């Protein structure tokens, strides 16, 4: 699917999640900022995890060597 495309999907999910949180849990500017921080942190963490695993498999130096079939 491509690195860039999936990154854009993560960004889109993050934006949608922030909007949903703003709509459902609107409790004043300071609380909203806190919720926004949480959503952004979660999105960044998840994206980072995915990106690391994806990049590691883009140009691998070793390939799977199957073990003995029993």
């Amino acid at each position, binding site marked *: 699917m491509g690195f860039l495309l999936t990154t854009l999907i993560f960004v889109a999910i993050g934006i949608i999640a922030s909007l949903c949180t703003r709509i459902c849990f609107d409790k004043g500017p300071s609380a909203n900022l806190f919720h926004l921080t949480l959503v952004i942190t979660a999105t960044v963490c998840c994206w980072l995890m995915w990106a*690391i*695993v994806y990049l590691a498999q883009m140009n691998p130096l*070793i*390939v*799977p060597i*199957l073990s003995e079939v029993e």
Partner: protein
Amino acid sequence: MELLKNLPEMDLMRSEKMTFVQLIIPVESAHRAVSYLGELGLLQFRDLNDDKSPFQRTFVNQVKRCAEMSRKLRFFKEQIHKAGLLSALPTMQPDVDLEALEIKLAEHEHELIEMNANSEKLQQTYNELLEFKIVLQKAGGFLVSGKSYETPEGIELNEDVYPSDYPESASLLEQATQSGPSNLSGLRFISGIVPKSKVLLFERMLFRATRGNLLFNQAPADDLIMDAVSSEMVEKVVFVVFFSGEQAKTKILKICEAFGANCYPVPEDLTKQSQITQEVLSRLSELETTLDVGIRHRNAALHSIGVHLTIWMNMVKREKAVFDTLNMLNFDVTKKCLVGEGWCPIFAKPQIQEALQRATFDSNSQVGIIFHVKDTVESPPTYFRTNTFTNAYQEIVDAYGVAKYQEANPAVYTVITFPFLFAVMFGDWGHGICLLLGALILIARERKLSSQKLGSFMEMLFGGRYVILLMSLFSIYCGLIYNEFFSVPFHIFGASAYRCRDASCSEAQTIGLIKYRDAYPFGVDPSWRGSRSELPFLNSLKMKMSILFGVAQMNLGIILSYFNSIFFNNSLDIRYQFVPQMIFLNSLFGYLSLLIIIKWCTGSQADLYHVMIYMFLSPFDDLGDNELFWGQRPLQIVLLVSALVAVPWMLFPKPFILRKLHAERFQGRVYGILRNSEIDTDSEPGSARHHEEEFNFSEVFVHQMIHSIEFVLGSVSNTASYLRLWALSLAHSELSTVFYEKVLLLAWGYENFLIRMVGLAVFAFATAFILLMMETLSAFLHAIRLHWVEFQNKFYGGDGYKFKPFSFATIADDED
């Protein structure tokens, strides 16, 4: 920067603004004011009578009375529990006055004690009568058969009461009774009852004491009898001792007393025996009914107390708390007002003022309560307004150290990064689903469980239910990325990117598969599981991942220290601590992260260990095969130089500049002292200024040196510490594989149904206890460690103290 300054303050980021206040309360409204403040729960009183002992304080009598009342209430509770009554549901009651309550409690206690004493006496009498009845029954048998040839009618009446061990001694008794019954110096007897456990010893002792001149008969009692000493039901044995002589009698009586044997007089005459037996029986039945009535009466009294008990206990607890707080206040000079000091959040000031006004109104006082802000140099307590969701995370952070007043609160980021790092170490979406179910059950039964009293383990689990919820959600995500469902990979996101080189797959076990498509779109490719090169690949992936997460979190920590410096207007810290720290960490470990990413993107065969080590050992050498990008060598030299420059940058300038600043301030102070003498100097600020005038340069310098060395050495050790993310995730995955392959698959290989069931059970138990409990605790602990040490030592002070307001709600929790 402008955008950052214009943002509203974030909710949990810094402590609520606190202010130091002084209250002046007239005596008549003091009690009511403190109770209303207790209900509000937003003011922390300072103990102004710290140096006085508990007995020197003003309201010591009231506190003693409250303590006495709570003792009485505990006594009632115990009695209710002993009587086996169920605690009644509390009813809604109007408020009872404290003095009236005291009198009522005293009355109830008196009544209850009296009832208990009476019933005890009755019970004792009952026991004695019971023993007497049994003695009469059994001993009567001994005596009668001895006179068998005196009264033929006696034989008919009592033939069936022959004791079993009697016949051999019959001759002696026959000889004795020929001389007539009970003469003064003839054969006499004592009858009684003794516990079965002591009867052998008793008999031997009697034998020795009377030098063998006695006859001892015994028969066991049929029922269990309440032993007065131990208040248990024991078996007893009826005995009759025949002896002669006055001295023998006194000896025997003394021995009976020593052994706790009760002696009862049994008349020899048959008619008298039956008469007395009738009397005893009737008295016994009377006593039974009396006892019954007594117990019912007592239970009714206890029940009526029990209905009010919880409310009374709460009331007394609250009153005691109010008097304890009143004890913290000082009487002022005129003895008509109480003066109190304390901390309260600024947002609570209107609420407190309103409560105080209500108290003045309700107590019909002429004078209002004065409530005003006071200055102090003491550092305020830290107060975070948390809800049920963020409370658990705040407690995790507070367990390490409570934030200093208004410094950045790591809990804001911990809410997400802590479950996330847990999930990196736990990643398996099958186990994640189990955790999710557990968390959902706890949350669904929230209301029911929060009102119950739980064991300590369950309480911790329940308190952390939202943490566990997030942990499970992130575990499911990481499990999907690691592609492990109870260690089994799935092809959820499409076919694998690897396939055999040719149609026959002949070289799959030697050279391996080849990659013919783009990388697997989400997560680890399922072909890796079970291959021989799985571990080298995953180890490399997870180690590099740990380093990347570590560098990211440590950078976040340093950036938070930047925000702290901006907030406290500490430009010195920004220039001489934040900047060199960023430069040092990122020129070494940020560069390593960059190399990792470049190596992944280009697929180069460069050895990163080699690159990093030789960057230090021989930076000017040619890189050769290890060159990842153009310009790498000059870049490495620049980064090395900047790292080396950053170390003295963070070490030296700050102490010297602090000394210079202090000298400037102190110079201006000479004129300042004259001016300040007009302002009142009796409060603390005066003494605090004396403190600031001392500036110990060596202390500051050593402190800065320790801080810098800690950072420099710590940057290496902390980065390496993040490798535990790799270690634990490897352990989890290996354990999971072992249980799956060596237990479940092995058992499933057999055709036998029983073996399959046993295998399934063992797999379930092992998964539940080892993987779900032990591994969860382990990953939880390591994630906490990463937050407390590696993340927080970049910016967190943690030397504040928590805001503990005077509140009735917390008292109820404390006492339990």
